[in-house]
């Protein structure tokens, strides 16, 4: 820092801690753990209603079924932090899986199949990011809506509308097997979660995505490479779709143009349930994972309880509304809290 003149501190700096703020402070602390609290409530309810729910075997199922949503949600989180959205990830899962299956039919090389799936995801992500930034398209909603359609059509066309069976052993291992009750895919999710946690909280790049989401114009004026940051989140989102394709294709031992249908909406729902803001600049990996788990647990519990499959989307929708409402209350409390502190100061 360049400032050199020192000044004595006056007693006026920093307000004294107030006791009156304790009530709202407690409410705020509680509501800040909102998503986690909701997850615990859902798990407790499910365990009470179904004796099967809280068995290692079933929990393994839940984890396996949640892996894809979790990976897509973590990537979607990065995009949403920058005020963006990526609607194309579901179609990209399908396209990557189909490309993987066709590659396997042509050359039975596991390495090549994995690279083909990851490469397809990367390619779609790069198109999204570059079209958004250099094409100066008005909003990522439009860009990724277009690539959603293109990737979906490409997957159908390449696959001839048919699923293609057969995946290399490694891919089947990652997507479809477990160590005891713990699915391999869960280990992959955990490793990726640590990586994203590091990216978002410890690295300069993480600062930049929050800065770009919080104030894009300010970020430009602060000499942050805004365009590069934007491209990077869409590239990572595409890559995540490639990884999700490996898990899906491995679990079903096939590549099909129907994979990943509406997965983008699950991912967005998970992020929103996890309290991230659509206005950008806010959200955490842990909460996005909690959101993904919540969706997985609710679906699983309803299956166990033989709830009509048509009811399930209704329940998920209601959960989204509750989660967002809790977040609105949190915001209002935080503002009230701040006014009280300003008065005290």
């Amino acid at each position, binding site marked *: *820092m*360049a*400032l*050199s*003149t*020192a*000044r004595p*501190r*006056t007693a*006026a*700096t*920093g*307000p004294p801690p107030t006791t009156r703020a304790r009530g709202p402070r407690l409410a705020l602390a509680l509501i800040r753990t909102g998503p986690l609290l909701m997850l615990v409530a859902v798990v407790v309810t499910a365990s009470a209603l179904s004796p099967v729910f809280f068995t290692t075997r079933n929990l393994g199922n839940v984890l396996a079924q949640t892996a894809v949503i979790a990976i897509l949600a973590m990537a979607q989180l990065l995009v949403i932090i920058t005020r963006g959205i990526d609607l194309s990830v579901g179609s990209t899962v399908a396209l990557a899986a189909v490309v993987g299956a066709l590659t396997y039919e042509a050359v039975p090389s596991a390495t090549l199949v994995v690279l083909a799936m990851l490469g397809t995801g990367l390619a779609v992500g790069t198109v999204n990011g570059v079209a958004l930034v250099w094409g100066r398209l008005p909003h990522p909603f439009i860009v990724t809506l277009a690539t959603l359609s293109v990737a979906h059509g490409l997957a159908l066309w390449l696959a001839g509308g048919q699923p293609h069976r057969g995946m290399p052993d490694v891919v089947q291992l990652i997507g479809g097997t477990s160590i005891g009750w713990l699915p391999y895919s869960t280990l992959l999710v955990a490793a990726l979660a640590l990586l994203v946690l590091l990216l978002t909280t*410890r*690295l*300069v*790049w*993480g*600062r*930049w995505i*929050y*800065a770009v*989401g*919080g*104030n894009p*114009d*300010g*970020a*430009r*004026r*602060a*000499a*942050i*490479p805004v365009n*590069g*940051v934007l491209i*990077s989140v869409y590239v990572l989102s595409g890559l995540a779709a490639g990884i999700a394709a490996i898990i899906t294709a491995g679990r079903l031992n096939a590549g099909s143009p129907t994979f990943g249908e509406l997965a983008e909406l699950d991912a967005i729902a998970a992020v929103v349930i996890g309290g991230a803001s659509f206005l*950008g*600049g*806010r959200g955490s990996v842990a909460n996005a994972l909690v959101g993904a788990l919540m969706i997985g647990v609710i679906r699983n519990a309803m299956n166990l309880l033989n709830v009509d499959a048509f009811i399930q989307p209704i329940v998920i929708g209601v959960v989204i509304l509750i989660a967002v409402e809790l977040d609105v209350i949190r915001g209002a409390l*935080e*503002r009230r809290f*701040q006014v009280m*502190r*300003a008065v005290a*100061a």
Partner: protein
Amino acid sequence: MTAGTAPPALRIAGATKRFGAVVALDAVDLEVAHGEVLALLGDNGAGKSTLIKCVSGVHQFDAGTVEIDGTAVSLGSPADARGAGIETVYQDLALFDNLDPAANFYAGREDAGPRWLPRGLRLLRRRAMSESTAEVLSRLQVGLPDQRAGVGLLSGGQRQAIAVARAAAFASSIVILDEPTAALGLRESRRVLDLILRLRGEGRAVIVVSHAMDHVMEIADRAVVMRRGRKVGEERPTPENQQKIVSLIVGGV
């Protein structure tokens, strides 16, 4: 103020900027010396913020030259301006409401390592950044309830104080403030004015945009008046000149 032979900290000549059909700046000449406070005056839409944004690298002049300490420079980007030791408090403050004061201070110039990694992949030195930010804020007597909270929850005055402190902390040569006291009460305004005087005392060149004539009279060494993109006058802000300056601003007969 200037040592006669020393080149000015900043010299702008023939600065012109158009936005489509709007001529926001029309051949403006301007200079400011180290240890001098220059007030930039003019009615709404006169082009003051545009001039400031061009010097800060946010916009680029369509024509004109910029010299810093006698050397011609090109301010093609905010990074260029920062590199030249120019810091700006924008009219809209350009704060990140979702980030804490330290993250706001260091946005785009994060203290991080190791150096052989690309900038974005370096590890943040979060503690070092918080500590030095807290130190600057306390030295400038900016009291905050919570150093870790996003600045969006602070009062208008506190936000403005943070933006001013950020510019003061990092400017090695030139500090530009676009209406820095606009949102402030009496006590906070006083602090900002004192800070400006202190920056001058430390040899920095200061450009202040303000509509508050009493502030201008008190702190400015020189006043440049703009109207519709042109520089229409330059005066010493003395009590005798105040009426003249006001009529230059409003463009009386």
